[in-house]
């Protein structure tokens, strides 16, 4: 259950935590808490996903409190709002995750390669821009266009053969 729901929980948490390193640490906490408290859970896959998202919400807000003094963080009210909407519409998140994999295959191969490389942990945008003989700003622009196209594609209803 946890394995199947993980992409949805990760994505949900991403909307609540900006820093990627913090995100991965909180995600580990979510994993451990769900794993630890699994004996108390009753329900199906969908309920589990929702339950884990509630745990993620709690962990994210707990983390937000540690960053309260930081000027550049979203307010607690806003994070709560995004978190609540995310839980209410967690099925939508599932659909987006499913759809994203389809959308990636529909990208032209050079764009797909570019976006995958841009997210590769050992690849800096500066180096990639140099390799593609462009500037980092231009590359960021191109990546934004690709992501925008993917985001548009993700709203097309998923094929019935996939479900979470």
């Amino acid at each position, binding site marked *: 259950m946890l394995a199947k729901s993980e992409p949805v929980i990760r994505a949900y948490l991403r909307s609540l935590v900006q820093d990627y390193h913090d995100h991965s640490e909180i995600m580990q906490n979510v994993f451990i808490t769900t794993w630890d408290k699994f004996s108390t859970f009753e329900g199906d896959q969908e309920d589990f996903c929702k339950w884990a998202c509630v745990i993620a919400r709690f962990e994210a807000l707990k983390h937000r409190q540690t960053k309260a003094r930081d000027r550049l963080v979203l307010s607690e*009210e806003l994070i709560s709002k995004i978190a609540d909407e995310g839980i209410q519409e967690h099925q939508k998140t599932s659909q987006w*995750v499913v759809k994203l994999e389809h959308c990636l295959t529909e990208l032209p191969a050079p764009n797909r390669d570019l976006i995958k490389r841009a997210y590769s942990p050992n690849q800096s945008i500066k180096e990639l821009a140099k390799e593609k003989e462009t500037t980092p700003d231009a590359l960021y622009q191109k990546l934004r266009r690709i992501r925008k196209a993917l985001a548009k594609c993700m709203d097309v209803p998923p094929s019935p053969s996939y479900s979470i």
Partner: protein
Amino acid sequence: MNDSDHELIQLYLDGNLPDHKWKEFSQRLERSADMRREFRKLSVLDENLRAQSLGFPNLAEREQNTTPPSYLPWLVAAACLVLTFISWSTPTQSFPASTSPETKQVQLASVLEPAPPIAKLIDFYDLQFKNTDKPVEDICFDIGKYEIERGQLHLRFNNSVELLFSGPGSFEILNPKLVSVTQGNVRTIVLNDKGKEFTILSPTSRYIDWGTEFSLNISSSGEDLVNVHEGAIEVQCLATQNKSQMLTRFSKVIDSPEFTPVLIDKQLENSMPGEMGGYRNQELFDKLATDPDVIGLYDFKLPLADKDVLLQRIPQSWESSKNNLTPNRWVPNLHLSNTNASHGIFHGANRTNGRWPQANGLNLFQKNAHLSLDINQNYENFSFSCWLKPIGKLNNPLNSLIRPYRWKKLGNLSIEVTRSGKLKQFLWGEPHIQELQPSKRKLSRDWNHIAYTFGKVGEKTVSSLYLNGKLYNEVFPNFTNSIVLRNVIIGCLNNKDGKYLNQFNAVLDELVLFRKTLTKEEIEKFYHSGLPTYELNNLSLAATSVAP
């Protein structure tokens, strides 16, 4: 929701949102439900692309990894029957009439690259899983639980973390950076920054690896023994998650009373990468035993064959003493069909630990210690390979590795090691051949791989020595056309007066003789095949010995 909202979200997720736009972003997000929806969608996009690049399986792979229910094969079979009937009953229907979701799925799947499993199998030894008899090589180490009855397993996560597990016990892969262990002995090594934060969960505690190497024994009684070999790990008590303590190799006791289930044991030394290499090495030897280019294969284990069988291929120098020999003096030639090289017999030496646990090497420790064997033919193409570990000092100006009993004719080869550990090669009748670019490398105190090759390369005859997979020196003989060894002595030389001199004070293991000229690539492969695998991929190792 407009383009500028979209851009703000992307800047935020990239971590590039300028300070002066932060307030605007926050306010617009607060006001617009549409923007928040788009924000959540782009978070899905961002997170999944990042997770996949870090080795997390995508959804399709997770679906594949889920164990199918037992009735599924029957359903598939029934569906196939129905489809066969439909296709038979409607022959006029063209294909593809339209792109059905299923067809589209197949087309899309072909575009997706097959993703590797979360953990890569590196090695195993005497391994038995509880619920399956499936060969270990066929098991896909993805998210799931693995129960081990006995034996050892070596896995690599995301090219960044080595996990060595010794049973009995069980572990569960929860994600590429999180493994829960109910019982068993673990050694974890973080190879590079990507592997930091790799976490082991025991029933009572959580061990976060911050770029280190540590051993951990988790018992069924709920007590954990831990020893940090290098770097630092963070230990957290699961009952009081906020409490954590950093442990280094200098830590002697756990300070806080909350950590009572965790004990530091400085003697704890779980299995190292490479220790299971004995299995890989055995596989290599099994392969060489049927290789038509191999003439001699010696691993120094105690002979299984009885004396009568061994006596059929006795080295000439031992012919007169054959009745006094005991089987433990024999080193059988393990090649299954080639009889060109005899079995070996040693003198002044004994069997000792070889390169791997449970393997034997030959300790040439006495002044007259040597191994004798015969090679019946002359070889225009010849190679040999062995592993050597010096013990103590090399006592002589030249220490003899291999040469014939009598140094008297063209084709005789001798390889010697100087006191300082440099390799020299000599060919009878070729006193003036010059080494090209003599190497400055020396034999190390650890296991060294030495290989020799002889044969024609184009028009020239080349005689080359290799140390640890790399060319050491090569010469171009003027008169020697083939290697003539006949009665070989390994480990010292026998002079005209019958005295044994120039003892090579070393342990010898895995000796192989070939009737072909090994290429540089073959020697490199041979060398690497006998090493701990983690060294192969040029991974930057945090801190461990390279020696097996």
